[in-house]
Structure formats: C-alpha cells, structure tokens
C-alpha cells in the first residue's frame, strides 16, 4: 500500500497582469503554495508526489524561479517525485527549463520526459509509470496512444500520468490540447490515471470505481476557478483499490459576486459580508445592481470603499446600481417647466442609463 500526492497545473510564473493591485501577491502565492503542498505531502506520508503537468506556466522561466521551484520539490521526503511536462511547460530536446530543472533536482525527482514506461521497483514501489509528456504547447494528438500497446505485468500497479483535455470535462473547442476521451483512458489497461490540464477538480466526488483523476489547480488562478485549490491523495492497496482524498490547498480566491441593492439592509448586509477575514485573500469581481433612493445611493458611494479595503483586489461594477429617479422625485426637486425637469422627464422607460447620467450631471452643476 502506498500513497500518491497528486497535483497539477500550479502554473508558476503566471503574471496576473490584469490584477495590478494583487499581482505581486498572486505571483508569489504560487511558490508559497508549492512549498505548502510539499509539506502537506510530507505530513500525509505520501510515497509518491506526482505533478501531472504545467508546474510552470511557460518554458521561458527565469533560472531563479526554476531553482525556487525545484528546491521546494527537493524537500519531498517520500520515495519519488514524478514531474510530467505539460503543455505550458512542455519538454523539447533542448529544453533549457528542464535542463535547469534536472540540474537542480534531487536524486528521487524524475522528469518524465519520454513515452517510456518507468518501473518504480527501484524506488521500493510496486508500480509501473506510463508518462505522456507534452512536447509542444499545442497538439491535436494526445500522447497516450502507446500505453495501450504496452505489455503489462498483472502483479504490478500500472499508473499513467498524462496532461491534456478530456472530452466532456475540459473545454477544448479547437481540439488542440492533446485531446483524450474517457473511453480511451479506460481502455488503456491502466489501473490509475493521474491527469492534469483541466483547472477544475474532476470527478468532483470520486466514486469507488473511478480510476481517472484530475485535481485542478492547487492555487486558484482566476475567476473561472471556483474551488479553493485542490490536490488529490490517492491510496492504493495490494488489491489495487484506490481511496481518494480531496485536499484543499489554495491560499487565495477569486470570487465573482452579484448583489442587488435596493434597500438599506442590502447595503448593510453587503458591507457586513466583506467584514469576513477570508476576503482579505480574495480578488473580488463584484457586480452590483438595483435601485436606491438618492440618499441611499449617496451612502453607497460613500461606503463602497469599505468593500475595496476589505479585499485583496476589487473589480467593482456598479454601473447597474442606480438612483431611484422617479417622476415624483423629479417634480419634487425641480419646478415644472424648468430645464432640468423637462430634460429628465423627456427620457422614456428604456432610456434609464440616459436618465441616470443626466440626473448625475445635473446634480454636479446644481447650486
């Protein structure tokens, strides 16, 4: 029996250029997460640390960045680390990234650069690894075709590590991310598939008979990532049955929120929500809509910075949050027949944006 700590798609070197405020934190967070992952794997006494592709976001990593990553990985205390080049950190014959990686890597760190089976008995493990490394960023053909043809000793546990899209699981409309099908994977005669590429966790709730696992990124990387960063811990016993534990691994979150503010309590609730500590490590895309009485609207304008202050970075879209500008109100504020009254009253029901803007502009020049 042994345990496999299975991660993928850490994407060290992601730049987060569209997050100017959080950029530095987010870039650094991925290295910290790697350290945490290795520590977690050690804590869990995992024998194998498997990185199923896209450890790095690109092949043009700086030496210091590679070193930082390898030094973290070298701290793994289990039997062996299996590192598969993915489509972002693909390997070529002259790969400077992987040359440097290998130079720094410890003895038990294996870069799976060939489509050749690797018997782990030398590492004291009853396992044969079938790597499907990526040799380019894009490929319309996957790298697992050969696995099915391999002779397999029934006594051993056969594990394939692959990286690419799985039909029906990950979006790959152009079919250029080493596309694979579940059927193909199931028919390859392998006991366990350690997959990478898709940033969501799949299956979300592993069943007893599942053999294909894609952990998703261990550190959220954008608003598309709804989970908190995931890793799998697979435990394989002598009968080749697999127990799976899903581990939460990420530090930062990307939250997309939509709120409707119509009343005082809506504002209060929203502001309260952001008092929670978890938002300090969140990049939040907040879309606010609704109709507020002018004084509440003013209150919102005054207090919305509180949201900004309580998150790592806020992308606020409150263009759809409006003052309640009613005819009644217009009449109350501007005498009948006066220019502002005539202007504001001239907008029809579907010119709400115009009405809002005109109202705000009038307020700006009102004495």
């Amino acid at each position, binding site marked *: 029996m042994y345990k496999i700590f299975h991660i993928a798609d850490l994407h060290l070197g992601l730049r987060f250029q*569209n997050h100017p405020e959080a950029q530095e934190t987010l870039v650094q967070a991925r290295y910290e997460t790697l350290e945490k992952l290795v520590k977690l794997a050690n804590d869990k006494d995992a024998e194998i640390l498997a990185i199923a592709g896209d450890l790095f*976001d690109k092949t043009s990593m700086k030496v210091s960045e590679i070193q930082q990553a390898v030094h973290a990985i070298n701290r793994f205390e289990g039997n062996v680390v299996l590192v598969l080049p993915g489509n972002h950190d693909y390997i070529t014959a*002259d790969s400077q990234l992987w040359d440097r990686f290998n130079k720094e890597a410890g003895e038990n760190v294996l870069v799976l650069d060939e489509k050749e089976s690797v018997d782990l008995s030398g590492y004291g493990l009853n396992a044969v690894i079938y790597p499907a490394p990526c040799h380019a960023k894009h490929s319309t053909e996957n790298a697992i075709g050969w696995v099915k043809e391999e002779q397999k000793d029934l006594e051993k546990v056969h594990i394939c590590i692959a990286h690419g899209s799985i039909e029906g699981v990950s979006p790959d409309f152009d079919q250029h991310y080493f596309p694979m099908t579940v059927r193909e994977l199931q028919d390859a005669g392998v006991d366990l598939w350690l997959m990478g590429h898709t940033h969501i966790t799949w299956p979300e709730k592993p069943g007893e008979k599942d053999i294909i696992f894609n952990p998703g990124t261990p550190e959220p990387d954008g608003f598309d990532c709804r989970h908190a960063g995931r890793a799998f811990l697979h435990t394989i016993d002598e009968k080749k049955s697999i127990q799976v534990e899903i581990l939460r691994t990420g530090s930062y979150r990307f939250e997309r929120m939509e709120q409707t503010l119509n009343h005082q309590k809506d504002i209060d609730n929203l502001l309260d929500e952001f008092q929670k500590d978890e938002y300090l490590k969140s990049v939040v895309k907040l879309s606010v809509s609704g109709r507020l009485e002018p004084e509440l609207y003013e209150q919102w304008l005054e207090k919305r910075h509180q949201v900004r202050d309580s998150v790592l970075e806020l992308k606020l879209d409150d263009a759809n949050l409006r003052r309640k500008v009613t005819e009644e109100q217009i009449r109350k504020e501007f005498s009948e027949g006066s*220019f*502002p009254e*005539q202007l504001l009253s001239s907008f029809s029901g579907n010119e709400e944006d*115009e009405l809002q803007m005109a109202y705000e*502009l009038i307020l700006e020049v009102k004495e």
Partner: protein
Amino acid sequence: MKLKSLKLHPFAGIRKKEIQFEGGLHVFLGPNEAGKSTVFHAILNTLLTTTSLTTNKVESEMGRFFPASGGDVIRVELELTDDDQNTVRIEKIWKKGNRQGSASLHLPDGTEITNEEEVQKRIEEILPVSPATMKTILLADQSGLHHTIREMEREDHVRKELGDLLRQNLMETGGVSVDRFRELLDQRYEEYFKRWDREQEYPEKNRGISNPYKVGTGKILDAYYKKEQLRLDLEEAQRFEDELDRLNEELSELISRQKEKKEEFDKLEPLKKGISQRQVLEQKLETAKEKKTRLFEISQKWPVMENQIKELEPKKKKEQEKVGKLQEAQKKAQSKQRAEQLAAKVKKLEELAEKVKEAKKEVEDAQKIDAEDIQKLRRLRTEISNLKSKIEGSRLTLRIESESDQIIGFSEAGKTEEELETKAGKQVEKTASGGFTLFIDGVKVDVFSGEGDLEEVVKNVSEKEKELKSHFEKLEVDSLESAESLAELYRQKKQALDQAENLCKSELGDEDVESMKQELENLGDLDKVRDFEIINQELVDAQTELRSLSKDAEAAHEQLAEWKKTFNTVEEVIDEVGDISRSIKDLTAEIGELPKLPERFDSAEQFIDKVESLDREIRGLEKEISDKKLEKATLEGDVPDTSSEELQKMVEEAESDFERIHHEGETLANVRERTLSLLESMDANTYSSLEKSFLNWLHQIVGDRFETIEMDVDLPSTFKTNDGRPLTYDLLSHGTKDTVALAWRFALTEHFLQDQSGFIILDDPMVDMDPDRRKMASKAIEEFAKKQQVLVMTCHPEYGKQLNKGALFEI
C-alpha cells in the same frame, strides 16, 4: 435703483442746480439743445464715464460739457436709492488735463471709495443692466429714440444680454445653470469622444492601432486602443507559440532522424574496418587465383612449344627447296617466251622484205616520167598558149562581096589554106587572128594586124609546137594530160616502195635477221617447258607458306626465350604454381575470419559508401539541429512575457471595458443630444414673453392698428395691419415708428429691470405723433411710470402739459 437727486455745479450751461427726484414720472421742459439734454448727459456720464481720462479724451468725450463761460472743471453729484431707501451717492469731477478728474462713491453703509477704477466697477455692478444696454435702451437720447430697433440690430451685446436674461427666467428655476450644464456635457463629451468617429465607430481619420494617436485621446479611444493593443499582443503571443511549436516539432523530427541514423551508423561502423580489409584480401585472392591459372597454363604450354619448334624446322627446309625449284622453272619459262618472240619477229621481217621486192619491180616496170619532164612540157605549152593569145588579140574581120561566083583561097595566119566560095551578089564574112592571107586568082594578099612582126610570132608558135610534139613522142604520150597522169602513177609506185622499205627497217631495228635466227636456234627445243604464270603462282604460294612457318618458329622461339628469361625452366614454373596455391589457401582462411558483408549490400564499396554517407548525414543533421536551435533561441529572445491564455483573459476584459466605456459615451451623447434639442425648442419660447409685452404696450399706444407682429427671434420684423397688409419696420411712418419704438422700449425695459426698480429716460418721445396717438402715448407713459421712474425730456410745453401726472421741471 432709482434716481434720488442730481446736483450740477457746474455742468454745461448750468452753473449750479440741484434736482430732487420722486418715484414715477418727471417731465423736463426746456429749449432744445439746452437744459433738457444737460440733465440727460449729466446722469449718463455720471453713471458710465470714468473721470480718469487723458487730455484728449477729456476734450472729445466731456469737452462740450465744460461751461461756455470758462472754467476747467465740471462736477456732478448723483444719488440713487433702492426700494429700501439704501442710498448710494456718486460724485464725479472732470478736469481738463491728463487724468485730472476724481470720483467718489458713498455706499449705504457709509463706506467711501475713491479709487476711480473701483468706483466705476462698483457703479456698473449697481446698474441693473450692462452699460451698453443702459445706453441703448434705458438712457437712449432723443436721436436714438426711434432708432432703438435699428440700434439693437447692431448691438450684439444688448441682444445677448436680453436673450440670456429671458432664458434665465425660463431655465434657472431648478437652480441649475444651463450654461454650466452644457459646458459640463461638452467637457464630458470631449473626454469620451475625443478623436473617436462615432459614426464609423472607429478612431478618427482611420487611425487604428497601427497608427494610433498618442495624445489628446478620449476615454473611448483609449479603451479601444487598449483592447486592440492587447488583441495584437495576443495574436503575437499565439504566433510566437505556434512558431515555437513548429520549431520544436521540426527540431524533434531532426533529432529523431539523427538518432535513427546514429543507431544505424553505430551498428555498421565497427564492421567497416573488417569489411574494408576483406575487400583488400579478396582482391589479393582474386589476383593470386588469376596468376595461378596463368602459370599453370605456361607450365602446360612450355613443352608443347618446344615440340612445335622441332617440328617446324623440316617443314621449313622442304618449303625452301620447293621455292628453289620453282625459281629455276621460272627462268626456263622466261627463255621460252624469248624464243616465241624471236620467231614471230623473224617471220614478220621476211614478209616485209618480200613486199619491198614487189614494190621495186613495180617501179621498174612503170614508164618513167618524172616531174622535170612535166615541167618542161608545161612550160612549152604555156609559151605556145601565150603566143597564140597574142595572135588571137589582133583579130580581123574580112567581108567579101564578089560580083561573080568565085573560089578564093583563104588562110588564117599560121594556119592551113581553105577555099571560100563566093556567090554573086552575096557577101562572105570571115574572121582571122593576127592576119590572113587571101589567094584570089593568084594573087596572094597578106593582111597583118598591128605591128607587123606577127609573122615571127606565128613562126615561133610553129617551132614550139614542133618541140612539144617531139617531147610527146619521146615520152610516148600524146598530150600533156596523159604525161601528167603517167608521172603521177610513177610517183605513187616509188612512194610505195619507200614505205615498204621503211617498215622493214624499223621492224628490224639494230638487229639483224640472221643473228636472230642464230639465237633462236641456240635456244633449242622448249616445247615441254610449263607456263610462266602457273609457275609464278606456285612460287608465291610456296613463299607465303615458308614465311608463315618462319614466323611461327620465330614466335615460338621468342615465347620460349621470354619464359626462360622469366622462369628459367619449366620446373621452376611448376614450383611457383605450388607457392601460389599455398598463398591462396592462406588468403581464403584469412578472409574467412573477417566480418561478412551484410546481405543488403552488394559490395564492400556500397557498404563503405553507406557508412560514410551516414556519417555525413549525421553531421549534416547536427548542423541543421544547431541551426534550428539557433532559430529557436532567436525566437525565444522575443518571448512575450505573458502567455496567450492569460492574454486571452486580458483581451476579454479590455473588450468588456471598451463596451462599457463606449456605452457610457453613447449614453452621454444621447443625454447631450437630448439637452441640445430641448434647449433649442426652449429657445424658441424665450422671446414669447417679450413679444407679448411688446404687443401689450403697442396696443396701448396705437389701439388695434396692428393685428399681429412677427418676431425675427428677438426683434420685431413684420407688422401686419388689421387690413392684412404686412409692413416692415422701415415702411412705417415716422409717427408709427416712434410709437413702435416707445412700446418696444417699454417691453425691453420691463424685461431688463424685471422685479428691480429702475429708471428710463425718454427724450421727446412724441414729436412725430399725431394728437390722438400722443394722447394715448401719454397715457402709456403714465402707466409705465407707475412701476418705474420715468424722465421725459421735451422742448414742447404742450406735451409737457399732456403728461400732467408727473412732476414738471423747467430748465
């Protein structure tokens, strides 16, 4: 503000005077160009003309107000008061000279201001309208009265002030400055749309991202450029990634090809040395085998050759003998030929000798008349002929007429006598040459012609003829012709003899027949000797055979000599064959131990070529790989620092930002458009109150003379009379113009002053009006004076009386 008091001391013609004003109507009566204008100008200048004037300005603007009686100073004090009795006092002193005047302003709170600039500024602030409007509308002097409308056309400032005023009434009720609002809209619009072509939804002048504006761009264009730039960056990143993928693929293809080649090379290369050795040894073996075959052949041929030489010698001898015999036979055959020739020649010579003999006899038998004889005969005959011709040349004709028949002898000279018979009465005619002789009855009559020696000639002819005859006899011929014929015959025969003799001589040559015969006899009998030709042919054959035999013998000798020279003896050849056989065995063994040529190769050369070409290919691929790596390194030198996936997200965000900003801009543009169109439509109503007020006053003065009045925005343009005639202002009568101007000024003043209290000065407003109108105008003035202070200046006392509701001042 209304006028409270005015003090002049002095001003123009007035030395010292103080006027106290009430509210309402004031009538100033005085002669033209005297007092009434003085009050008007005093008020006007106190309000609007600074005291800080240059020498020239003092003269041009104020000069006419200095007292005619002398003095270089004029002074005015004017008090204004508002409805709450707050009074402002203005004191102005103008002096001749440069900026000599002074002014002071006493405010209701007791402060006093003497700084001239400040004084003027404060006065203008107190005035209800701008100085221009004051001059044009409120304080128009006499000359200006009915020009009010014309003046307004010229005075933009006044019209603008009026418009602003009227508009303000309408729009500032919400506490919103329309102008500020419009400015704000314009400013925002600019912020969004600067350099953005709304219609094309594209940067102005088609300056897309490839040629972007660097400065002065609006928010929309900025957002547009940002998204376009990101899109370009994304394309660039994708291009880079694709290019890198391509290079990697090519590179891995090259590397795997190189690997393949290397594997094959590594398999074949170790065999190369052995196979190359094998090639050399196989070559040697081949040579040895060939040599062995050759030597073996020599060893076999050697004794055969020796034997052949032995057999050749007797054959040669026999053939030589045969040649000798044939050569002898050939000589005999030559003698036989000689004999046959001799016999033939002798026979021919004997035949020729016989022909000579016969020709000789012929010559001997012929009558011998030679050429000399013929010559002699011909000469004689010629001489005779010549002589006869001479005789013939002296021909005579003889005519004889006889009287009786007679016989007369007649002979022609030299010829025989003949008898002529004559008949009586008949003529006989005869001709003769040279002369004739007649014998008549015995009479011989000789007749001669010419010289008389013809007789000699005739005699000579006879002699010659005798000589010729004797020659003929001697030659046994009867004529020269026969002599000539015989002579020819004789000559021919002699010629035939000569020919025969010559033939004989030439045939014989230097030889003589006898010695020939002797030689023939010496040659003896040669009948049994064979023909030369046959013998000759046999000889040629024999000689050829002999030569062939000699050649064979010689070749055999040479071959043997060579062999001997090389091998010495045949035994030694056999020894050498043995040596080579051993060496072949060794070589075969040695080759057996070397690697065999792989089956797919036809020859060692092909194998070695393959190994070498593999080596070259590997090195070629090495170069290609290194080039490709260099290409890749170059490409990676420009690696975009953000991946296409990340850029894709940024593009999407920038696109949605652009959409949002663009939407905001469009919303703003809609608000702006709505504002402008609203303002335009509101503007159309701006002047309606003015129009209303104007009509109201006009009705008060002229009754229902005009049905409607059309306004050209802010000025009355067309007056429609109640009988339907449209009249422009210029077409109105002087009196009507005055009434219209008065009503217009009331309407304007009402609008300018609005709720404030103020004053208006009218300079003789009713001069050109008919009495009825004047009455109505007076009423209107009195009506207007109920709200505002009105100062009417007039030089007509009766007009003054008509305005009896006001205070009267006589000046």
